[in-house]
């Protein structure tokens, strides 16, 4: 059992992610967000449970559904929100949007629009950490759908043969877009695939944040001590559509409702209450602080300016400020 501060930190992270995502959904439906957004609602236990054992200097590699990973790793909701609204104060100055948020200052190496694009970047970060003897760990978040990319295989094998400090966290939320994992994944538990790479494979209930926390803590500690990679699978569920606006014709409402009852936040609240860690009033305080924080993030984002159109030409090459202006 983690100490009280850790428990409160985990709870706060989950609640902040939920508040952020609910606001993003609202803003998207109000037509304020360009592009498309993928929400993490219902899956908060995974990022919160895993990142609780990471240091600021550790790395994570994220996915198209990355807002939760960002917040859990310590990114600022203000700059995330500004990015999602396409503003110049956003993490990527408006160049990235929801699907491409990164905060290198907290080791968040980027969301990814390409499913399975992150596996080997995580392997590289772990390789680099090992070569630099830095003691850092790289965590790669990925979906059940992503586990079917060829990149998965190459990453697992190489991380294993090089004994890299890498933890692969499968967010098994039952669907890849409209496709159920029962249809497209060859095994019931993605963690079973670890056998093929000679690494530990662990499956936990992803909506039980403490189970995620314990399994991740062990895997991260092993990686840090030179024990090599782990494939950790968290079984969870995407409560919202694949993207905001998804007609969701591929699943029954009753299925969604069943999973709603397993909400990782409500479950954790029951636990915290039962164990006497937090009372209702304290939890309410944490929730309202989170809402306040997100409201401020929205004001910040809305008041921020759009980038100057010519900023489109900056940041292409490290060797010159203006890609177009420097003869490249």
């Amino acid at each position, binding site marked *: 059992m983690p100490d009280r501060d850790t428990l409160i930190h985990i709870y706060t992270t989950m609640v902040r992610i939920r508040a952020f995502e609910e606001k993003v959904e609202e803003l998207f439906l109000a037509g304020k967000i*360009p*592009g*498309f957004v993928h929400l993490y609602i219902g899956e908060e236990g995974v990022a919160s449970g895993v990142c609780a054992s990471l240091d600021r200097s550790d790395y994570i590699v994220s996915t198209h559904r990355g807002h939760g990973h960002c917040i859990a790793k310590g990114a600022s909701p203000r700059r995330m929100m500004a990015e999602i609204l*396409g*503003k110049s104060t956003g993490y*990527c100055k*408006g*160049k*990235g*949007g929801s*699907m*491409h948020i990164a905060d290198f200052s907290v080791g968040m190496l980027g969301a*990814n*629009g*390409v*499913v*399975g*694009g992150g596996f080997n970047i995580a392997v590289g970060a772990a390789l680099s950490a090992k070569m630099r003897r830095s003691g850092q760990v790289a965590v790669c978040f990925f979906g059940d*759908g*992503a586990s*079917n*990319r*060829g*990149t998965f295989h190459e990453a697992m094998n190489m991380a294993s043969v090089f004994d890299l400090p890498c933890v692969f966290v499968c967010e098994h939320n039952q669907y*890849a*877009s*409209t*496709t159920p994992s029962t*249809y*497209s*994944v060859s095994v019931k538990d993605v963690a079973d695939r670890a056998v093929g790479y000679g690494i530990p494979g662990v499956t936990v209930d992803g909506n039980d944040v403490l189970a995620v926390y314990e399994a991740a803590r062990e895997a991260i500690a092993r990686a840090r001590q030179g024990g090599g990679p782990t494939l950790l699978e968290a079984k969870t569920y995407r409560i919202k559509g694949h993207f905001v606006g998804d007609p969701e*014709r*591929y699943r029954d409402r009753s299925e969604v409702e069943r999973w709603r009852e397993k909400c990782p936040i409500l479950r954790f609240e029951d636990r915290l209450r039962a164990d006497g860690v937090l009372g209702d009033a304290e939890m309410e305080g944490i929730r309202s602080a989170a809402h306040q924080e997100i409201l401020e993030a929205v004001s910040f984002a809305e008041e921020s300016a*759009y*980038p*100057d*159109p*010519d*900023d*489109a*030409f900056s940041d*292409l090459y490290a060797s010159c400020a203006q*890609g*177009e202006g420097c003869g490249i």
Partner: protein
Amino acid sequence: MREITFSQATLEAMAEEMRRDSTVFILGEDIARQGGIFGQFKGLPQEFGYERVLDTPISETAIVGSAVGAALTGMRPVADMHFADFVTCAMDEIANQAAKIRYMFGGQARLPLVVRAPDGVIKSAAAQHSQSLEAWFVHVPGLKIVIPSTPYDAKGLLKAAIRDDDPVLYFEHKALFAMKGPVPEEEYIVPIGKADVKRPGRDVTCVTYSVMVHRALEAAEDLARDGIEVEVVDLRTLVPMDIDTVLQSVRKTKKVVVAHEACRRGGAGAEIAATIAEEAFDYLDAPVVRVGTMDVPVPFSPPLEARVVPRKKEIVEAVRRIV
């Protein structure tokens, strides 16, 4: 003539070819149960079954790779890439395998394979969901490149691509799927390798394809009000390229703008401009002008995206520069 959408036109092409030839099948992500992001596969599994309309795992390498293997052994697969950006995940299968197998093995094999790739900029989809990558494949001998602009051409060319015995990359711009246009009820084919003059004009030739055809037509409309007549040549296929139609137009107008949504540097426009310079240099009264997306990844924020992607305005300006 009845009007249907680009998406419906491609759907009809698929259905007609699947009815005609039982070896035609399609595979890709979220196509059978969902019907495709643009509804372009709706109803196919109901008519042809889930074995010929295959939902695959997220495995682009396997989608294209298995299509290559199936094509080699008697089937006519159509592989859907979801977004053209993800062809990168099947580059070996396209460039090293599909493009080379027939030649490398001395003509023993045929590869009747179509890779469908929805491309282009739409609604702030950002850097990894907005690309137009046709030029990469123009550079690989052994592939054919089809890139239609209207529902009529989309249908006729998709049918031709499916019947073709060589690997064809079929690029369909995401912004075109909802566009309506006349499509006859009767069956027809648009041959691969034939350009189409979408608007005649005597002053400037605009050589273009895909979504830019429509922007060129809008530009031509505007310029006509000032007495400038632009001839819009829709290439429709890049390999093989109907350079005769282009040269015929250039000999008449003596001025050329080449326009595409892919980025300018190393784009198909460079190949077109170079060919015009080689074949019709003496006819030219002005340098060939290229219009394309600025050479940066497509940024997310609307003002940034608008800044780098060429529309009617950029074509009008390019024409004005040389008339």
